[in-house]
């Protein structure tokens, strides 16, 4: 009896110490997976040791913290860019937060964040509010209009696309196809891709029809489209593959080349904005993003490189 009691006491003690001990060990492993790319090396050792990492010395030691806020579309890309940059420059700390494009421009203009992220053009009224704003286009994102492979329509005008997604054109025969009802597939409300599509194609007052099939990721939209005859949807260029067909919009094919030369109509810039010309570590990061390494990551993430 006594022995069992002791064993239980020991077990409880182990549990308590395990719980107490586990808290500090889990914290550092959890940190890198979050948006915060944390400082890994202690700062003084780098300055004291001249043999260490010569490329890291390009970044000034003072003010080595960058905060980014804004578009949720830019957020994953910015996180990836921050992660890679911090890996090469361990004394830099970059925080990436969401909030939306408007919040991003405002944060940079007000100085609450050093960099604002916007997945759209900076508006004229924003430039009058913050006249000293500097805009860096770090990437472009094209949105293709895609259909099920058996749909015989090769091209649509932007207006036809708008009317189809608004639920006003409901049969393929109205746009040169077979006499079949159109099934609209869309992303859910709030999605960045949907927001950009609505802004560039639907306009302010036209809503995507409630009758659409809604899926909450680009992958699910693609799978739904591939298995549903007579369906139409929109997808980021990064998600195009053989299971679906991208149609031309205003006779322009959805290709990276056309997105870059400005002829394809559904393209949005991914911008980073700063208040005044950036200096120090902020400038170093932006230069790196626009350089070969940064642009390679942009391509890797499925966006269109600007350089």
């Amino acid at each position, binding site marked *: 009896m006594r022995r069992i009691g002791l064993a239980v006491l020991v077990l409880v003690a182990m549990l308590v110490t395990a719980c107490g001990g586990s808290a500090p060990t889990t914290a550092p492993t959890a940190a890198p997976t979050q948006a915060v790319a944390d400082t890994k090396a202690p700062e003084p050792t780098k300055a004291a040791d001249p043999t260490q990492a010569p490329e890291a010395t390009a970044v000034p030691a003072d003010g080595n913290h960058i905060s980014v806020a804004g578009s949720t579309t830019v957020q994953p890309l910015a996180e990836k860019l921050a992660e890679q940059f911090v890996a090469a420059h361990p004394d830099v700390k970059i925080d990436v937060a969401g909030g939306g494009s408007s919040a991003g421009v405002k944060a940079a203009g007000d100085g609450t964040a050093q960099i604002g992220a916007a997945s759209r053009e900076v508006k004229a009224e924003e430039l009058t509010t913050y006249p000293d704003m500097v805009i860096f286009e770090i990437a472009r994102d094209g949105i293709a209009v895609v259909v099920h492979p058996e749909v015989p329509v090769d091209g649509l005008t932007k207006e036809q696309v708008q009317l189809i997604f608004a639920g006003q054109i409901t049969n393929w025969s109205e746009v040169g196809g077979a006499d079949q009802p159109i099934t609209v597939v869309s992303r859910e409300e709030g999605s960045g891709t949907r927001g950009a599509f609505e802004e560039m194609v639907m306009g302010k007052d036209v809503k995507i029809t409630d009758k659409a099939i*809604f899926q909450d990721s680009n992958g699910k939209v693609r799978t739904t489209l591939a298995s*549903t005859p007579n369906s139409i949807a929109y997808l980021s260029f990064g998600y195009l593959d053989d299971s679906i067909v991208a149609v031309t919009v205003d006779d322009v094919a959805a290709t990276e080349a056309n997105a870059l030369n400005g002829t394809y109509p559904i393209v949005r810039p991914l911008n980073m904005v700063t208040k005044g010309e950036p200096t120090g570590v902020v400038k170093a990061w932006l230069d790196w993003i626009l350089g070969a390494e940064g642009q390679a990551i942009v391509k890797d993430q499925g966006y269109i490189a600007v350089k």
Partner: protein
Amino acid sequence: MKLTYAVDRTIRYLLLGMAGASVVIVLLIAVFTFMEALPAFREIGLIGFIFNPVWHPLPDDPANSEYGIGGMIYASVIVTLGAIGLGAPLGVGCAVFLAEIAPDAIHKIVRPAVELLAGIPSVVYGLVGMVWLAPLLRDLFKVPGNQGFGFLASAIVLAVMILPTIINIAEDAIRAVPPAYREGSLALGTTRWQTIVNVIIPAARSGIVAAVILGIGRALGETMAMVMVIGNSTEFPVPLTANPLTLFLARGRTLTGNIVMGLNYAAGTHRSALFATGVVLFVMIMVVNSLARIIVRQWARKGA
């Protein structure tokens, strides 16, 4: 002796604390959800929220946003009824077979298969529903507007998902019927089928009803698989043609689906409205579970 007593008491408190933890967690979740939902209820109003069939959150245009979950409550009810309509007979039938009829060899095959069914991740059910079931339903029912995605597809997927719950609890209930009932009935010269229908199932009915109601709770709360095949349209569900049964081929959005669709980006009133959706779901599931309790208790008192 004294130490043993102290240990005994310590363990008793420890176990009490563990039991208390689950109650505290439920309370915390409830309080948190209600608190987050409060701004939406205040702004939209309970009646407007529950009965308005229009859901139009506009992040950039709060003044013109509409938050109504009438269509979603309706959709949740349709899907759950469909899932129970398909799943309950299948599950109870399987339970009767396993408990009363199946020879050992077959029991050894069916039992693990049912357990395996419970172990398949929700998203796999959804994927099968999306790439196989939906196209099949589209080709099977030639009704204009039927795309396979919709209530019938979700009800079928959910019915399969709630099978293990129903089978396990119903089989236990049937096995718990005293052998004397069965033997007595057979001794009177009834057939096996007559014994099952007239003696075994009535004797086990409170357990069977509990199984079905737990299945209802599971179906109401299931999200991932259902979101993938229901279409998630915000339009109020109506039959596709004059035939009212085509309602099951229509698309809709359930309460759980609405939360999962919006939560990634929602801010402000939209976010709060999603929590309010959760509150409505919470209350619905609480009502269903209380109903189960009342029914079971009522029958237990009658000595069924």
